[in-house]
C-alpha cells in the first residue's frame, strides 16, 4: 500500500495566496500586464544607463515616470494618461529628459484603448499621426520612421480595443449561461412544485372540507350553553358529541397544518427572490406579492372561504431588498395560512396589501371560529416571529380578536433608494 506523499506546506500556502490574489486583487494579479510594465521599466532604465544624463531634474523626471508606470495596474486610465503627458512634455520642459519611452507610450496607448472606448482609441491614433507629421514636417526633428511608429501605435490600439471587445463578449456569454442555468433550475423547481401540488393538495383540501362539514354538523347539535342534556339524531349524548367534535377538530388542525406546510414547500420551490436585486421600480416585488395573493386566494376558495383580496400601489411600489421582500412575502403567506387555520369555515375573509414608496401595509379581517375564545386564540407562533422581524426593521404587527372578529395590521417600512424615479403625482381636477 502506497501512501500519498503529503504536499509541502509552502506549496499549499503559495496556492492559497495565489487564489486569494486572483479573487481579491484582479487588477494586481494580471501576469501579462505586469510583464509589460516590468519590460517597459527595464527599457527606460536601460536607456538611462546607455545614454546617461547629468541633469538631476531629468533623472527625477524619469524616476517619476517609472513610478507612474508601476502604479498603472492600480489606476490604469489616470496613470496611463499621466505617463503620456509626461513623456510628451518632458523633453520640452527638462533638457535631458528625453529617454526613449516608446515601449511605455505603446503600453499606455494600449491600456487606454482597453480601459475606455473606441472613440478614445481613434483620438489617440489621430494624435499619434498628427504628432509624427508635426515632428517630421514642421520641426524636422524625428529620428525614427514615422510610418513604423504609426503602424505600431495602430496595432497596439487595435489590440486594446480587441481585448476589450473580447472581454465584453465573454462576459455576456457567461451571463447568458448563468441565466440559462437559473432558468433550467427554476423550471425544474416549478415542475416539482406542480407535481407536489397535483399529488397532495387536492386530496388534503378535500379531507379538510369533509372534516369541517363534520365539525359544523356536530357544533350545530350542541345546546350552545355546554349542557349535556340533549341527544342528537345519531343516538349520541352531548358528552359523546363533544368528545367527537374535539377529535374531528384535532384531525382538521393536522390536515390544515399539513396543507400549510405543503404549500410553503411549493411556494419555496416556485419563488425566486434573486430577481429583486435590480428591482429599482418595485415591479418585481409587486409581482411577487401578486403571485402569492393569487395562490393564497385559490387555496382558500378551494377550502370554501369567501376571500376578497386587493393589492393597491399608492404612489409607487417600494424598491425592497431581497431580505425585506422575503419578510413581506412570508408574512403574507402566514396571513393566508392563519385564515385557513382559524377562520370560520366557509366565512368571508378580506385582505388588502398597500404598497407605498416607503412601506408595505397588510390588513386582514375575518370571522374567527366559534370554538375559539379571546384567550385561546392561537396562530400566534408564526405571527409572533413576524412581529419581532417587523419590529427589528422599525415596523409593527398588531392583531385583535374581538366579538368573534379577527383583525391583523402589519406595517413594514422600506428605505427609499436614491435611484428611485420621481414619485407618481396626482393630477388635480
Amino acid at each position, binding site marked *: 500500500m502506497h501512501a500519498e506523499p503529503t504536499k509541502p506546506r509552502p506549496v499549499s500556502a503559495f496556492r492559497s495566496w495565489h487564489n486569494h490574489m486572483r479573487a481579491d486583487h484582479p487588477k494586481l494579479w494580471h501576469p501579462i500586464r505586469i510583464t509589460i510594465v516590468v519590460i517597459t521599466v527595464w527599457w527606460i532604465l536601460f536607456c538611462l544607463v546607455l545614454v546617461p544624463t547629468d541633469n538631476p531634474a531629468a533623472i527625477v523626471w524619469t524616476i517619476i515616470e517609472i513610478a507612474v508606470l508601476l502604479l498603472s495596474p492600480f489606476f490604469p486610465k489616470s496613470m496611463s494618461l499621466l505617463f503620456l503627458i509626461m513623456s510628451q512634455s518632458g523633453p520640452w520642459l527638462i533638457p535631458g529628459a528625453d529617454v526613449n519611452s516608446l515601449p511605455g507610450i505603446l503600453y499606455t496607448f494600449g491600456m487606454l484603448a482597453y480601459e475606455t472606448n473606441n472613440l478614445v482609441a481613434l483620438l489617440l491614433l489621430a494624435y499619434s499621426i498628427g504628432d509624427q507629421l508635426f515632428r517630421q514636417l514642421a520641426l524636422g526633428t524625428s529620428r525614427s520612421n514615422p510610418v513604423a511608429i504609426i503602424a505600431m501605435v495602430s496595432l497596439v490600439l487595435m489590440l486594446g480595443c480587441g481585448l476589450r471587445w473580447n472581454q465584453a463578449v465573454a462576459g455576456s456569454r457567461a451571463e447568458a449561461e448563468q441565466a440559462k442555468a437559473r432558468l433550467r433550475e427554476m423550471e425544474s423547481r416549478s415542475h416539482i412544485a406542480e407535481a407536489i401540488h397535483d399529488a397532495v393538495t387536492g386530496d388534503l383540501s378535500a379531507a379538510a372540507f369533509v372534516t369541517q362539514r363534520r365539525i359544523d354538523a356536530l357544533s350545530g347539535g350542541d345546546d350552545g350553553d355546554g349542557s349535556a342534556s340533549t341527544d342528537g339524531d345519531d343516538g349520541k349524548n352531548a358528552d359523546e358529541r363533544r368528545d367527537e367534535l374535539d377529535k374531528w377538530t384535532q384531525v382538521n388542525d393536522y390536515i390544515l397544518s399539513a396543507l400549510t406546510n405543503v404549500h410553503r414547500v411549493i411556494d419555496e420551490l416556485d419563488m425566486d427572490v434573486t430577481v429583486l436585486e435590480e428591482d429599482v421600480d418595485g415591479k418585481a416585488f409587486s409581482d411577487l406579492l401578486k403571485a402569492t395573493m393569487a395562490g393564497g386566494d385559490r387555496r382558500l376558495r378551494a377550502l370554501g372561504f369567501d376571500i376578497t383580496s386587493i393589492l393597491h400601489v399608492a404612489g409607487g411600489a417600494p424598491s425592497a431588498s431581497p431580505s425585506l421582500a422575503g419578510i413581506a412575502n412570508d408574512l403574507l403567506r402566514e396571513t393566508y395560512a392563519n385564515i385557513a387555520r382559524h377562520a370560520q369555515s366557509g366565512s368571508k375573509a*378580506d*385582505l388588502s396589501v398597500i404598497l407605498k414608496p416607503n412601506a408595505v401595509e397588510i390588513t386582514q379581517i375575518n370571522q374567527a371560529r366559534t370554538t375559539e375564545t379571546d384567550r385561546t386564540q392561537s396562530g400566534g407562533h408564526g405571527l409572533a416571529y413576524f412581529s419581532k422581524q417587523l419590529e427589528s426593521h422599525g415596523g409593527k404587527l398588531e392583531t385583535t380578536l374581538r366579538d368573534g372578529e379577527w383583525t391583523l395590521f402589519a406595517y413594514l417600512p422600506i428605505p*427609499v433608494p436614491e435611484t428611485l424615479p420621481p414619485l407618481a403625482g396626482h393630477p388635480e381636477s
Partner: protein
Amino acid sequence: MNPTKSAAPIPKIHRVALVDNDPRALESLSLLIEAKVPTAYVVWTATSGDEAIERCQRNDDNLNLLVLDMSMEGLQGPAICHRIRLMDRHLPILGITSFSINSYRSRLMEAGAQGLIGKEDSDQLAKAIERLCGGNVMEGFEPPALANVRIRREEETSPRLTVREEQIIFLCADGMLDREIAERLDISESTVRKHMQGILKKLNCKTARQAVALWVRSHAR
C-alpha cells in the same frame, strides 16, 4: 274579484345620503335615485364636507350608502371620505365625479371608499348605487370594515413629524429654499438642515424631494 292585480310596489329599504356642493347636482341625483334605483330613497343631503361629517358622526339615520362628490369647497371628497371612514366601519361610501375617474381613484381607495363612478352615465351610476346598497364593493376597493381597520391603524402607525418638522416640510413643498425657510421660521439654516435630516430618517427617504413628495401626498386631505 279583481281580474287585473297590480304588481306589489318595491319596498324602499335602502337609505341613501348625498353630499355635493352644487344644489342642482343634489336635486338631479335625488331624481335619478327615485327614477332608477327603486329600492333606495334619499334621507338627507349636504352641501359641505363639515356638515356631512357631522351628520355621519351623529349616526342616527342608519344609512345604507353615502354618495360623495369629489370636488367640494374646502375639504375635498377624499379627505371627507377619510374622516368618515375613520369613525365608521359599516357605511359604504360611493364617490362621484364629473372629472376623470383616474384623478381620484387611487386617493379615494386609500381614503376608504367602496367605489368611484363618473356622473355622466346615469345608468352606470344607478347600477353602482344599487350594487353598493346591496353590500358589494367595486373592483379595486376595500369593504368598509377592512378600510376602517387599515385607516385607524395607519393613523397610529404612520411616522409622526414634530410641529417644526411639519412646518419645514410644507414650506419645502411650496418651493422655499433653506435660507428662506430659516428666515420665515426665525431659525438658522443649519437648524433647518438638521430638521430635514430628522425628516428623512423618519420617512425612510434618501432625498428631501422624495420626503416632501411622500409627506404632501399622504397628507393632502
